[in-house]
């Protein structure tokens, strides 16, 4: 097999003053004809920089400091801009993580495809549109979708449009930069399938960038593992996944949570939180003072659940399933339309003002986004002591407890006078957890607390959450889209879809023998099961 792309000794320098001198250093990688190569790594590992260097799209300030990139035997690193322009799209095409950001929102998607075709080939609009329509059909869309605007399509459909656009000039190499990361697991499975199919049909080479070992296992012929700008291990996928040589690869693979081995359910006790028949309808529009016409979306439809002390209940679902709305309704960040939220015998759904404030103190939340969940203008000590101070605790005692609490979540007291931007994503989640625990809550709601984190950090934070739950005898409501994560930490699991509960049961039995078709579909769609579950 001849290599279509041969990267040898590629180094890209970072501007001075960064945390390391090179974005990528001495990277060598070959992509054969009709081969799928995955680059896998955590954030900041240099995998995207490598891909961008291959497209000649390094951001300003980053320059290749050495090495070579040969495409079909020809050196392309440092070639003039017009040569790059001729190659991009025609020889090398790229798809991105966020198709909404990559598509122009005010132009129908068909026009965006023909624009690309006509930039490289001298054919008429009608002929190009014909080609675009054929491509759309091959991508599993309908020709009618050509006239749709990006916002009228679903995330999966948009990614299909992106792939159609990328394939419109029959490139020999497709670079895919985390193309399924923002998608639901079932949609991800379809898109991966599509990429595999078109790759086979067209004998195309694919460079696929991902952080997910499951995807690697299902898709790749060969894999390169990157860390801190260097390739630590590369080889055929079977060899790297089944017999990893480098300790980092081993750690990464070990950090992927498994679907089996969930904790056993607790013996039943009186619940601390009992939700019955919770319903929520979102109304949009309404115009001035709500006098106009409204559109309604049923976000929650008669959802019931119970939660006891020391127990973790997982709420699992795809986007739009209502799982986050459920959390927001329980702590009354959103108003409830109907139903009961019994917390220690009192109905939260009917509370207001002071009573609600007193109850909320005992139900706290950890948020998804480690960047927006901490106020960038407050120091860690202000953030962590905010709750106790709001409830009248003295500043001195609060500060003393804050230091203890930081120790509990694995941070040093020296973090107190610093600002959030000085911390990594995992550390920020720890700060957010410390903030919630300062009020000594009975119930902790964790809304996707690890989905923005790298897999090794994810494992640490999950372990911490579980330890804190046991230590403080917390009842934890754990919301996630990731079945593996739920399996790792939850005693019981509830699967939601379109605002309804599909299935509920002990985690171990639910994952091993799902009762509903929907749960089976979700489980089947998880990538990499054959290899990672073994």
């Amino acid at each position, binding site marked *: 097999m001849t290599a279509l792309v041969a990267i040898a000794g590629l180094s890209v320098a970072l501007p001075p003053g960064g945390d390391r001198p090179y974005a990528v250093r001495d990277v060598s990688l070959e992509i054969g004809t009709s081969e799928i190569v995955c680059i896998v790594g955590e954030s900041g590992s240099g995998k995207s920089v490598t891909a961008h260097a291959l497209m000649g799209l390094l951001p300003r300030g980053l320059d290749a400091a050495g090495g070579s990139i040969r495409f079909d035997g020809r050196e392309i690193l440092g070639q003039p801009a017009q040569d790059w322009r001729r190659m991009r799209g025609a020889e090398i095409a790229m798809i991105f993580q966020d198709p909404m950001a990559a598509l122009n929102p005010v132009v129908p998607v068909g026009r965006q495809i023909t624009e690309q075709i006509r930039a490289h080939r001298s054919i008429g609009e009608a002929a190009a549109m014909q080609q675009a329509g054929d491509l759309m059909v091959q991508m599993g869309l309908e020709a009618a979708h050509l006239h749709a605007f990006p916002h009228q399509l679903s995330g999966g459909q948009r990614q299909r449009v992106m792939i159609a656009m990328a394939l419109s000039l029959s490139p020999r190499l497709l670079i895919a930069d985390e193309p399924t990361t923002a998608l639901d697991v079932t949609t991800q499975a379809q898109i991966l399938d599509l990429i595999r199919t078109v790759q086979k049909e067209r004998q195309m080479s694919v460079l696929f960038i991902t952080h997910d070992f499951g995807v690697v296992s299902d898709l790749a012929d060969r894999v390169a593992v990157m860390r801190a700008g260097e390739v630590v291990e590369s080889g055929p996928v079977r060899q790297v996944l089944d017999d990893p040589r480098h300790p980092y690869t081993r750690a990464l693979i070990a950090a992927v949570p498994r679907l089996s081995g969930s904790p056993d359910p607790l013996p039943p006790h009186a619940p601390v939180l009992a939700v019955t028949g919770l319903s929520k309808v979102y109304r949009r529009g309404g115009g*001035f003072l709500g006098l106009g016409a409204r559109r309604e979306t049923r976000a929650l439809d008669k959802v019931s659940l119970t939660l006891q002390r020391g127990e973790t209940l997982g709420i699992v679902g795809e986007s739009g399933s209502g799982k986050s709305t459920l959390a927001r309704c329980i702590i009354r960040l959103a108003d409830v339309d109907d139903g009961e939220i019994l917390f220690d015998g009192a109905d939260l759904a009917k509370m207001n003002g002071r009573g609600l404030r007193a109850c909320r103190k005992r*139900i706290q939340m950890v948020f998804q986004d480690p960047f*927006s969940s901490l*106020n960038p203008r*407050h120091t860690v000590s202000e953030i962590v002591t905010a709750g106790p101070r709001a409830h009248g605790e003295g500043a001195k005692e609060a500060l003393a407890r804050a230091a203890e609490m930081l120790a509990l979540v694995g941070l040093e007291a020296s973090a107190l006078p610093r600002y959030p931007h000085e911390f990594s994503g995992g550390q920020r989640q720890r700060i957010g957890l410390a903030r919630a625990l300062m009020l000594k809550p009975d119930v902790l709601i964790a809304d996707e607390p690890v989905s923005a984190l790298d897999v090794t950090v994810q494992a640490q934070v999950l372990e911490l959450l579980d330890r804190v739950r046991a230590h403080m005898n917390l009842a934890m409501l754990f919301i996630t889209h990731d079945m593996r994560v739920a399996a790792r930490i939850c005693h019981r699991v509830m699967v939601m879809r379109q605002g309804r509960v599909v299935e509920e049961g002990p985690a171990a039995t639910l994952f091993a023998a799902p009762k509903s078709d929907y749960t089976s579909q979700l489980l089947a769609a998880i990538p990499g099961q054959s290899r990672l579950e073994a």
Partner: protein
Amino acid sequence: MKDFLVRFLARPQTLIGLLVFAAIVVLALGAPLLFPRGPFTIVGMPLLAPGSPGLPAGSDVLGRDMLVGLIYGARVSLLVGIASTCCSVGIGVLLGAVAGYYGGAVDDVLMRITEFFQIIPAFVLLMVLVAFLQPSLFSTVVGIALITWPQVARVVRGEFLALRSREFVQAAKLLGESDLYIIFRQILPNALPPIVVVGSMMVGSAILTESALSFLGLGDPNLRSWGSMIGASRSAMWVAWWTTVLPGLAIMVTVLALNFIGDGLNEALSPRRRR
């Protein structure tokens, strides 16, 4: 903070703006010490050209020292500019914050009031207000604040709308913090950059508005401002250019300095432009 200063002072225009503005402030503050006789004293023949003995900027139609007038005028301009901007930012921040934070019906009502002020020709409203309240420093400040707060309110409301759905604001609600605390301690510090930028630009436009009012004779009759100097000298414009050109230049230089400072702040504070 150090990063901010480095970015802020990196542009030469900002530095020039700051130096010029500082010089004007020093002169304005020192005016009573430098010229204890005040700006209305007649010191010589009328319409003496700049450079006449003892009159580096000449004299005006009544034989008053132009230089003294210009420096005393700076006091009025700066006072009006800064005081009216403070009032305007105060009203705008309060209403914008409440509208943006609470949303819904509160927002609807407050924004309709804001639009009410925006659709009336601003300068006409200002003239009516000042005439109604009797021309004075106080009425000028109040009038200018009343016609300029809507733009602050709109900016603040937009920032609050974007920030109130951030997770740290939801966390603050769960922790039991009061709305007042959330608005002023959690959200406002994050909304400050655009407010500071708008404010610095507004000082300049308030000075222009005050000059226009004074030119029309609606300024405080007991104070000499740049606008009233131009207004009083317009009959002599063709025979003694300095009587109108020099106050005009003073206005231009001051507003330009303030705009340079505003641009610098915008460059340094606005995250969109940060690389």
